[in-house]
């Protein structure tokens, strides 16, 4: 069994529903975003390309982050899931550097001002601190909604088929661009899509064997197999969640509070 995801590049509309669903599911604090969208447009002389790559931790089979982790916090399960035991993470950030896909974020200490800096936390944020505690000083990333998968399996549900056992981003996608399932099962929806639509992994040359595959890239004019390391989108799509001071300016009560 190996959990994996297939992302249809032609269907993604850039709506960011996946990002919002993840923030809800995991009560992500201000400067964390597990899934991201890399969006860019090129006009390479011939055909205009408007492309969007939804990215998140690839749960690589040969994961560099697991290898470099000195404390054993980043581990790989038998089902292929790469996860971080936050209690073991020392915050060294070797993994952040090692991940060639830049899908890991370090949650700085003392930098969790809440979404409305200067105000008390909202009810949702307070609940989140109990229901899904994030540990400052550790590194985080997408965990394929491990909790949902495990709870679902325990209840006899099938991830990718039964909603309760499927990642939140997959459930919410209006475009149906995300499919989840078992890569080892040739009859699973993900395996079929990869087979029939010639699914490809991002940057296979890194040799990490990601568990996320992309399809229909040609249809939407994306450059197959390649996506830039970081967004080349300039100002179009940005992630305020990584610009904490700015959030403070916009949403905060300002110096002295109120």
């Amino acid at each position: 069994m190996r959990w994996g995801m297939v992302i249809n590049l032609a269907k993604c509309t850039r709506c960011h529903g996946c990002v919002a669903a993840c923030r809800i599911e995991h009560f992500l604090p201000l400067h964390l975003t597990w899934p991201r969208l890399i969006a860019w447009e090129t006009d390479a002389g011939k055909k205009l390309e408007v492309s969007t790559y939804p990215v998140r931790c690839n749960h690589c089979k040969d994961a560099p982050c697991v290898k470099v982790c000195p404390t054993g916090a980043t581990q790989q399960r038998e089902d292929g899931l790469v996860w971080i035991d936050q209690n073991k993470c020392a915050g060294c950030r070797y993994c952040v550097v090692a991940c060639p896909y830049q899908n890991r974020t370090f949650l700085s200490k003392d930098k969790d001002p809440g979404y409305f800096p200067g105000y008390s936390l909202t009810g949702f944020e307070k609940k989140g601190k109990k229901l899904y505690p994030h540990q400052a000083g550790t590194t985080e990333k997408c965990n394929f909604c491990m909790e949902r998968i495990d709870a679902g399996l325990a209840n006899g549900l099938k991830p990718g088929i039964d909603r309760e056992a499927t990642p939140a981003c997959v459930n919410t996608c209006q475009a149906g661009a995300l499919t989840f399932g078992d890569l080892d099962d040739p009859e699973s929806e993900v395996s079929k899509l990869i087979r029939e639509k010639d699914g490809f992994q991002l940057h296979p040359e890194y040799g990490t064997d990601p568990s996320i595959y992309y399809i229909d890239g040609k249809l939407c004019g994306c450059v197959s197999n390649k996506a830039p390391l970081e967004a080349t989108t300039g100002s179009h799509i940005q992630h305020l969640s990584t610009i904490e001071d700015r959030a403070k300016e916009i949403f905060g009560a300002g110096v002295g509070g109120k």
Partner: protein
Amino acid sequence: MGERKVIKSTCKSCHGGCGVKVTVEDGTIVNIEGNPDSLTRGTMCAKGLSSIQHIDNPYRLKYPLKRVGERGEGKWKKISWDEALDTIEKKMKEAMEKYGPWSIAVSQGTGRGYNRYTHRFARSIGTANVITPGYVCHSPRLGLYGLVTGYGRLYCDYHGWGGEFPKTHIMWAKQLEISSADSEMCYWYINSLDYAKNLIIIDPRATAYTSRATLWLQPRPGSDCALALGMMNVIINEGIYDKEFVEKWTYGFDELKERVKPYTPEKVAEITWVPKEKIIEAARLWAIDTPGCIQVGSSLERQANCGHTLRAIICLMGLAGNIERPGSMISWVLPKTGLVEDFYLEIPLTDEMKKHIIGGEKFKLGAARTCNPDMIIKTIAQSGESPIKVWFSVGGQQIVHMANTKEVFAAMKKVDFIAHCDQFMGPMAEMSDIVLPAAHWLEIDDIYDMHPRFMIEAHNKAVEPIGEAKSDVWIFNELGKRVAPKYWFKDVEACLDYQLRKGGITWKEFSQRLVSGCWGKDQVYYKYKTDYWRKGGGFPSPTGKFEFASKALEALGYDPLPQFREPGESPYSTPDLHKEYPLVLTSGYRAPFYFLSQYRNIPWLRSFMEYPILQINPETAKKLGIEDGDWVWVESPRGRIRQKVRCFPGIDRRVVMATANCFYPEEPPQSFHGLFISNPNVLTDNGHQDPMYGSPDLTCLLCKVYKCSKEDLKENVFKTQEYGTPFTKVLPIPNE
């Protein structure tokens, strides 16, 4: 873990309609997700999901407020609901007595479940001066569908209920896959694309789906009517129209044929900047690969030729026989609960009320049942005297979305009394005398009416409203009871029961059932071939046919056939102006994270696109010495605004696209929350209007673009990326 409950409801973060499951723990919402048992199959977009940050946002209005300083001074006093409603009642009654009830205007934001309350309230107190954005969004198409087919609502059949999906899709100035409105259709549109042969996108700029499209037509903003006439020219000349439908069921084909004759592909290519091969191909795909549907975007209704543009597009539907076929344009059969509009239509407009509609004599379609808002502004600007003495506003930022912001701003200051109902302080609230706190959709019991009208759904209260916030229906009912008691109800539940009575259910039952709809096999196709509308078949129009030429329009003094007219300002209508303002400006840019002027105060959503973006072709930018990410001035004869440049190859070199409807909630009240900083309506003109609907050119005008100097970026909103800059502003929360 505390007490946990799951409430099923309906999202209204845009026009809404997506089924929602809300998990509440000890009175706090801990999760929102789509309801898998609803028509939208458990999917939701970022806007709806982010309601979680809306609901307990510290900037929410919590109590009724009374302004104690000058307009825009930001000085407020907390008052009781009784005092607020007493004051509004008194002001209204005074105005009614002194100037007549038509001196009261009732305004609303985009139609989202409270239209029927605004209209019923206005009619109940005796005024038809309702200010809605309808004339620049949705009303023209509904009215014109009504003129052509006799029935006012044609929607795209994406569901496959008739056994067929559309073979050809046209997305005309619309991104249904992201666009704010009609989101309950987004899921079904994308789903139906899996079965489609052709997707034709007509849009001045590339979108996420243009790469996926069979064909992308990139017209000059404001030239869409000519494009439709050109496509009809091809279809008629090549004889590829639906002959059976045209011969048997339409009226005025010969006149239409004559009308489109001069619009050859060559000529249309010149007008629209779309290569002639693409015009021909689009016409052929549309006419041959049927069934098909055209999704029209409201950008077309924000143009001063909108009436004829829509007329032309509707004729295009008829030529291909794409009317009432499975997989084409269809008028849905209503649910058992009936037409939601009946809630106000049952109070007829009197001749007296009609006589006093502002703009009624001029815009015979757009100002037949509601007034023309621009005329109010013009009247005040010219006479210094406001015909409107009391302005009761619910949601919506008229001050932001109306053309020519400076004039709107000056005029509004002349209105004696404004009461505004909202969830946050914003430009409209700062202009008001009294501000009422409105509840969020997660805090209310109400009936949701979707645009296509084949169903209604329930908004079920998930949590108690914040502070003393109240639902729109409560506010209207309470005020109604005071001013026009005959038409209003004991309480909210009685009001909701009344609206559901035709379905034979009460609010309590409906709230459990969540939906009343008509779908699947219950829907009726090809109504015109049966006795459905007319004995022996036919359309419910005056001629009983689908009217290419409209006698009704002719009787009102309009051209009975679609006619192309240049925008008020364009390279061809005003060549001299074009020398000084060399770029065509359109303000149709919508981001999937905002709904018009809403949500810039929701951190999750603001994080996706912090600033309003001006899309400009990289080559044009290079010529102007502008780089990606620069702040630029965009200037028209009315004024100038600042937006952030995004170099974007998917836009014509002669066109720029500005983000619409923006203000900055974080800017101080004194600036009316940054009303003039980036709002493209500072640039638009309210002088050139559609003769039928009164719609001004909001999405097609001329501008010039140049770089801002450092000195130009003094406001707080621009202080970004300068990490460590001391920030001393304190955002006022007037409640506390």
